[in-house]
Structures are given as C-alpha cells and as structure tokens.
C-alpha cells in the first residue's frame, strides 16, 4: 500500500509544519507521493488526506485539477513537447508529429516497454529556445526531428541518467526544513502586529511630540 516511507513521513510532517494550515501542504505532499511511487494512486491521496485533515475527495479534487499529477502510472520518462505559439511558429507541431511516429504512440500514450510517455503540453517557458521539449521537466532546447531521435536514443541507453531524474522527482535540492532558525512555525491566529512594526510606531510617537 503506497503510504509514505518513514523518511518521507517525517519530511511530510516538516512540510506541514511550515504552513499556518495543514491543508496548504496538499500539493507539496502530492508531489512527494508522486516522487516516491512515480504516480499518484488513490491510496496515496487517501494518505495525504489523512495527513492534511481533508477528505480523500477533496485531495482528489485538488490533484485532478493540476496537469503534473499523474493519476495513472506513466513511463519512466515523460516527454513533453511544447506546441504553444512560440514553439508552433518554429516547428513545434511538426516535432510532435515526428515524436508520435518515432515513438509509435499518440500524445498521451506510453510505449510498450514502459519507458516513454508522450504529451503535447502548453507553454513550458522556454520560448526563445523553441521548439522546446521537457523530459521529466528537464529542458531540451531547439530540437528538430534528428536531435529528437538522438535524445530518445540517449535516454534509452541511459546516457542521460545523471541529467534527467526519474519521473516525479522534481527538486534535487530541498529547502532545509531543520533548525531553530525558523521564526514562525505555524504562527498563531491573532498574534498582533510584528515587533518591528510596534517598535517603529513607538519610535515615531515621541518624535511627534516634539523633541
């Protein structure tokens, strides 16, 4: 049953603690679950719901709204071809067509060996490097059909293992959640004005009385 591993459970608790309301951790925890299992299963969403104090339906409602959460297993590499306007103008749609032929699947499909899932996606924010492709959200710029095929070959042979992480693994570097340097772990509901605002107001008052 895909629940969090003990390490991830600990991390999940730390993530929740950074937010004034546990519900805010829904998306980060879904990312964490997807990182652990490669996709977001029903059981994982139930577990997230338990942790953030929501119903499973609420977590499903949230997760299904966002493009990046895969509610079905996907290939080891998600190949996202951008066809939006800046990419379209320099051959993005043709590149997608080529990718479909080359991988033998339609957009949205997964190859039989379970290696590649192909998707046509909206703007991936690499417009001046168009046409752009993301593989597990890592960029590959200015591709044509030849360099696309080379990329697929490199992925298949494991030549890009260091560059492209597994699907669902977003950030290799995490925000350090340890330590007593953190100022506000779950700030109280009505904590009043922060001290520096109060101090500034106090400083201003005597000056106003004329010194």
């Amino acid at each position: 049953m895909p629940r969090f591993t003990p390490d991830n459970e600990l991390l999940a608790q730390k993530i929740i603690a950074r937010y004034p309301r546990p519900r805010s951790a829904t998306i980060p925890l879904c990312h964490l679950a997807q990182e652990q299992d490669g996709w977001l299963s029903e059981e994982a969403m139930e577990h997230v719901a338990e942790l953030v104090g929501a119903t499973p339906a609420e977590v499903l409602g949230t997760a299904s709204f966002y493009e990046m959460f895969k509610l079905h297993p996907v290939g080891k590499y998600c190949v996202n071809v951008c066809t939006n306007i800046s990419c379209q103008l320099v051959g993005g749609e043709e590149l997608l067509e080529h990718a479909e032929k080359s991988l033998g699947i339609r957009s949205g499909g997964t190859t039989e060996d379970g290696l590649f899932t192909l998707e046509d996606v909206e703007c991936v924010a690499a417009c001046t490097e168009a046409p752009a492709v993301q593989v597990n959200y890592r960029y590959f710029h200015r591709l044509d059909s030849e360099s696309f095929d080379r990329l697929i070959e490199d992925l298949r042979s494991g030549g890009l293992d260091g560059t492209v992480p597994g699907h669902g693994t977003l950030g290799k570097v995490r925000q350090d959640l340890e330590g007593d340097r953190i100022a506000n772990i779950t700030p109280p509901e009505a904590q009043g004005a922060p001290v520096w605002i109060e101090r500034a107001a106090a400083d201003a008052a005597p000056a106003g009385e004329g010194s």
Partner: protein
Amino acid sequence: MVSDDVASTASVPRIVSSRFDEPSGHTLEGYRSTGSYEGYASLRRALDMSPDEVGEMVKEATLLGRGGAGFPAGVKWGFCPPDVWPRYIVVNGDESEPGTYKDRVLMERDPHQLIEGALICAYAIGAAQVFLYVRGEMPHAQERIASALNEAYEANLVGKNILGTDFSVDVVLHWGAGAYIVGEETALIESLEGNRGMPRLKPPFFPAAKGLYMAPTIVNNVETLSNLPWLVAHGATAYRAVGTEASPGTRLIALSGHVNSPGIYEVPQGTTTFRELFESPGYGGGIRDGNELKMFIPGGASAPWFFEEQVDLPLEGRDVGSAGSMLGSGAVVVMDETTDAVRACLRIVRFFARESCGKCSPCREGTTWEEKILERILDGAGRPSDIELLLDVADNISPGPYPVAADPSRGLDAVPFPPKQTTICPLGPSSVAPITSAIRRFRDEFEEKITRRDAIEVTAEPVASVPAGGGHG
C-alpha cells in the same frame, strides 16, 4: 542544452539582470560580490529605515507591477487594512503565459535578489511569513531558490532576528503543479490553500484585505520584487531617472518567434520601440530570412495582436494600452509573412480552452466552442456562418467592442485594453483577443479557408428512397 540566451546592450541600465552573465550569481557569495549593487546591503539599508519610509520610497519610485496588470506596487501595499494581523506575502512565480519566461530566468540566475526583494516587502508591510510560489514545471528554478534559501537561513538573512534586528520572517518555498490560471492572484491563493486553483470573485474582497486564510495578503510578481534591491540601494530618484515619467524603470522582454536572435532583453520602459527590438543587432537582429512582418503579439498570448502600423510604438504600458493591446507580461512574439493567421489563432485559443478552470460557463463553454469552430475551418469543413458565429461566441465572453489594435487601412480605430468580461477573471476575454484581431485583419484568410471546402459529390442515382408519410404526418 540547458542554457538560455540572455543578452543586453551596454547602454541599458541593468536593474534586475545585472547578474545574468555571472556564473556564480545565484550563490550567496556571488550575490554579494557581483552585479550593480552589493547583495543584501539593500536589506540592511531598508532595516535602518522605518517600514513606512520603505513603503513611501516604493510609492515615490512608482514601481509598477510586472506580472501583467501594471498596478503600482507601493499603492497595493497600502491597501492592507491597518491593525489586522497576521499579514502574508505571496510571491507569484507561477509564470505560464505563452511567450514569457523572464521570471524563470530571474529565479534561476538571481534567486537571492528575489529573496532580498521579498524580505524588503515583508519588512515594509509587517508580514511574518512569505510564500514563494514557483511553477511546478520549473525544477531548476526551485533548486536554485531552495539552495539560496538554505544559504540565507544559514547566514541569518532569513529567519529569526535578521541581521541582529527584531525583524523575523520565514520564506517558504511552495511548488505549483501545472495550471496556467493559478498565475491569477486569487487563484494562486486558492491553490496555496490546497484547493483547485479557481479565481475568487473580487470585489467584494481584494487579497490585500482578505487573501490567504482571509488575512491581508500582498501578491507580487517575481520581477516586481526583484526590482526592490536595486531601488533601495540607489533610491527613488535614481529609479525614476530610468524609463519614462509614467512608467519608470526597465522591463524584461522575452522576444520569440520569427526573429534572428530571440532572447531576454532588459529595456528601459518607453524609450525603445518595437521596431528597434525587432531590428537592432543588439536585440532581435531582424526578421528571420529577411521576411516581412505579418503581425506580432506585444505582451503574451492574452494580448490583442499588433501589425506593421504599431511597430514604432514604444515598449511602455500606457502607449501599448491606448493602441488597443497590452504589454502584459513582457512577452513579444513575432510572426512573419509565412504564418497562417488562422492556425496561429487556433493555437492560442486551444491554450485558453485547455487552461480554462471551468468555474464560469461563458469561458468554459465559449473557449471550447471557439476551438471547435476554428478546428473545423482549418480541417476544410468550415461553414459560411462560422466567422459570425466565432464573433458571437466571443461577444458572449467579452461583450461590446472587442479590444483590438487599430487598422487604419480599413478605417478601424483601436479599442483600449482591458476588455469587458462576463467572467470572474480575464482568462476568457483573453481567448477572444486573437480571434477578434485575426478576423478584423485577415477576414479573407478565414473566408478563403471556408469556401475552399470541396463540393460534396452527388451520386447519379438516389441510394434509397425515403418512404413518405410516417408516424409524424
């Protein structure tokens, strides 16, 4: 493989992009030693001032929001109701407007500049927590920000009693998960609360009064906050000296499409024209293959298109606005004469149809119908009434005169942006912009595609005769 061309010309003051070329600019050490001001000295300077003085300085500098709407940041900060606590800052790094990626580059190349800007804002408005919402599809930006935050916590620049003062604030990195509409500030707040990212109705409440967890919340764009360190270091007067009176400072412009050298350029507002941007060797370097310009998008996919008549307009929000479009997110997409206007139009409309959150029916239904009609026109199955139908659907999303660029050759005046809308947020009306722009200017291209449809062959003999009469008389 994973590099972005970032270029600039020597004469341009580099307010936000001064560390773009520095390989170590993203580290704390690099931030302290490179660029056009000393890293985190601006925060110390701000902490020596009172929070009100910092707010006044930003107001005086007329720092306009760089996310799209162009609202003065200092004025927005002032909308927080007095004596209501806690307050929050949400940094909008969920940039997904087609054509735009300036914020991604800012977060990747100069994360400390953004963190320092967010801290200055937090000090000024009295926020004890900052949420840095980064688009999910940008793991490199997230990594850079995460490691910058770790360094900043380590150096006591974020956290408890920053730099030995009584100023304490946490900066929390939050990841999105892929939804364009979350870039809208109220949708961003919904998403941060763990919900589907659907915009909230405003009025009655604006985020500055009731935002995250119904507490006063300032949502600012990445580029807006990245301006603050330079602004505080050099002062409001120096800031106002760049750009124009109404729009001081610079803009990061992401130039893409059919130009020889697409890239991100920092330009002073109002002093550079689109022509210079396209043709100058320091910027675009001319239209690809020596072709003619057909049209261009001045501010991201939401903006109505511009044409040859508008290339001499300066890159400045007001000028572009009164000409019937918007500078928006600073994304300029150039299309040359080889571009099929209907196909380009469909691609943008499809984007809005896919990204509509579904909350308002004119947008949810309207955008999908626009997509369907354009698809059948391009498939050669268009109907003679389709152009009028497209305009009618558009009118249901954004009623009245469509926001479009002027077309003197047809005696059509510009209609100023923004459009009217029947929806909670501007996503729906944005989908109307390419349709109305394209139909007004290239109606003949639509008509040609519609009448091009092959005549249906009629066989010589009827296949079967239909019996007359029947149950319905």
